[in-house]
């Protein structure tokens, strides 16, 4: 599928095999291949054409695929998402971009009342194969509204699916998978990870271990969680940028003889309940880590799914290490807000030291 394509400038000429790419490069490559593979795909948003996006995720795509396939829109998020609805009705596969997570709020009506409901409202005659790319979460010292964690909000809306990659490899494969689905997918890109390089196996979607065995070429194996690190003593559940941090924590905990499993949830809707049951069924302890505020966060949903499947064998209540119930703070306070290594270690300690009654 990708071997005959001309690579964009800045991207190593990649044939099948493992390549070191940043997440930005992996996403860019995925979009390039999606455009080449499906003539009904269109990419648009603010500055995604000539500039190639403020994060350069769409770099070079307009020059290569033309101004009709990749285009700049006026600065209006509701307009971008409302236009996506009409394009989908006309048979296109829109991949709109909201430039920063906080700017998804002006488009909430179109996302929630329109995109999420059109398939239902039209009794399945007007599917919405829209992949909304949202640079997400904090960690880059950005101004207000440029760092938010909207996953609970999106996951709560009937009719939407939500996914967040944590590695360049998953970014590449999950985006390609999402863009082929007939339902709307909110694709939350951890912007603090855009420039981190990692191995990307272009031909094999599943080089890592997954709780599910599946045919990699079918894409079915991309629908669930991923065990990012195997361990015996407890499970850290995370997604997006928090996966890398949890892997760091796991290395530190290992020095103290604590063997931590890290489960990268990837899909935030639907959540892979089976993977949670498998992992926590084995480790019998769990800590959920997310950047979003605590109250009504996705951690509560994860904790309930774990409780439902593992109540009898759990050795401690599921813990949560999260952001706080405050508006996303300024850059100087960001490190206090985002779960850091120490807070996650304290969460692990609470779970390990829990005694009944």
């Amino acid at each position, binding site marked *: 599928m990708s071997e005959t394509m001309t690579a964009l400038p800045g991207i190593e000429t990649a044939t099948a095999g493992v390549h070191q790419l940043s997440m930005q490069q992996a996403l860019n490559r995925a979009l390039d291949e999606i455009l080449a593979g499906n003539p009904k795909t*269109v990419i648009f948003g603010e500055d995604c054409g000539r500039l190639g996006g403020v994060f350069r995720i769409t770099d070079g795509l307009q020059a290569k695929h033309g101004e*009709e396939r990749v285009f700049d*829109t*006026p600065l*209006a998020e*509701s*307009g971008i*998402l*409302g*236009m*996506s*609805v*009409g*394009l*989908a*009705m*006309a*048979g*296109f596969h*829109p991949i709109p971009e909201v430039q920063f997570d906080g700017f998804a709020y002006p488009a909430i*009506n*179109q996302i929630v*009342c*329109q995109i999420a*409901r*059109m*398939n*239902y*409202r*039209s*009794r*399945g*005659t*007007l*599917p919405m194969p829209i992949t909304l790319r949202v640079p997400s979460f904090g960690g880059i010292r950005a101004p207000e509204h440029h760092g938010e964690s909207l996953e609970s909000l999106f996951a709560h809306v*009937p*009719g939407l*699916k939500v996914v967040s990659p944590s590695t360049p490899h998953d970014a590449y494969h999950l985006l390609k998978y999402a863009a082929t*689905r*007939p*339902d709307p997918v909110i694709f939350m890109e951890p912007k603090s990870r855009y420039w981190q390089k990692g191995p990307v196996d272009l031909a094999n979607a599943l080089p890592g271990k997954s709780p599910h065995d599946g045919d990699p070429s079918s894409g079915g194996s991309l629908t669930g969680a991923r065990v990012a690190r195997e361990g015996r003593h407890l499970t850290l559940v995370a997604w997006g940028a928090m996966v890398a941090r949890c892997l760091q924590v796991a290395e530190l905990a290992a020095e103290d003889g604590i063997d931590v499993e890290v489960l990268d949830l990837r899909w935030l*809707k*639907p*959540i892979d*309940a089976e993977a949670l049951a498998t992992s926590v069924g084995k480790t019998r302890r769990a800590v959920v880590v997310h950047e979003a505020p605590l109250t009504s966060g996705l951690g509560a949903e994860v904790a309930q799914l774990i409780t439902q499947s593992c109540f009898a064998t759990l050795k401690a209540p599921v813990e949560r290490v999260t952001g706080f119930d405050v508006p996303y703070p300024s850059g100087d306070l960001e490190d206090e807000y985002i779960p850091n290594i120490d807070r996650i270690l304290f969460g692990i300690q609470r779970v390990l030291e829990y005694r009944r009654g």
Partner: protein
Amino acid sequence: MTTKSVLAAVDDDAAPLTHHQLRELYTLMAAVRHLDTSAVAWQRQGIIPGYAPELGQEAAQVGSGYAVDRTRDFVFPTYREMGVARAMGLDMVGYMSTHKATWHGGMYNPLESRFAPIQAVVAGSVLHAVGWAHGQTLAGHAAGEIGVAMTYFGDGASSQGDVHEAMNFAAVMKAPVVFFIQNNGWAISVPTERQVAGGSVAARAAGYGIPSLQVDGNDVVAVFEATRSAFAHCRAGNGPVVIEAMTYRRGPHSTADDPGRYRTLDEERLDAGDDPLERFKQRLLTEGVADEAFFAEAQRLAEAEEEAVRAGIADLGPRPGAEMFSLVFQEPTPALQSQATAWRKESEHV
């Protein structure tokens, strides 16, 4: 009032309407008037839980809907476009099923009818029309053959930001879209002068560089001709058009509304102007296009149609509950499937 056109002259099939077409327009208006007033009665009789009447807007709706080419155009309604739906030949049982509370959006097929699902977020679909219209441009149809999107909204919806974004997008992209405003004087209880700044909705179009025209929305022929010109303008690749049809909502906003709280009957009579149906009838009589026998027949057809639609919606019955789960996604989630299973187990006593 008279129609003031600021559209560039377009070499359209601008032949005057034939007598046959004029009679067809009247027949449609009579059908819409009867179905509309009947639907209000159905609500009072408990046949349907609610309805949004369009009494007085028959000319605006039939005249514009009559200009749509169902083989290539697409209409984006709100919830008060029954007359447009009827003029476009929709399955009216499917249309009325929304008001029967059978299914949000209606039971008709939007792709076949070229009429998007009914919806209540009144400016929401204005942007959809722009997206669909831009899709026609991207699809590379030759000028003159391109499909046109027509989006309906009212003076109230024109206050919403999505309308501004839609007009700006459409103008920047030269999208073939007709913004059809039915200015019926009221947004529930708020009159146009407390709703629309800048003189009129049509006046705003100038700010986007979009040609606009204000038309007498109670004159079905004027509305048809304005819409036909707008479609020709769009189809020729000239970008969007704004049409503001000045009309009057003679009834309540919905069957749950009490207009007596915000206007008197005297004010209503004074402001409503000529009844568009009666006015058209007089014109057809004066011009010798139709006679009393024709009008009696139109009324008889309207009554027969209403009876058929009433019987149709009475027969609809509730939808199977499983549809609630199966139509959310094209690919249902495991959680939704397990909720459907639990629902079946707990609600279907087998």
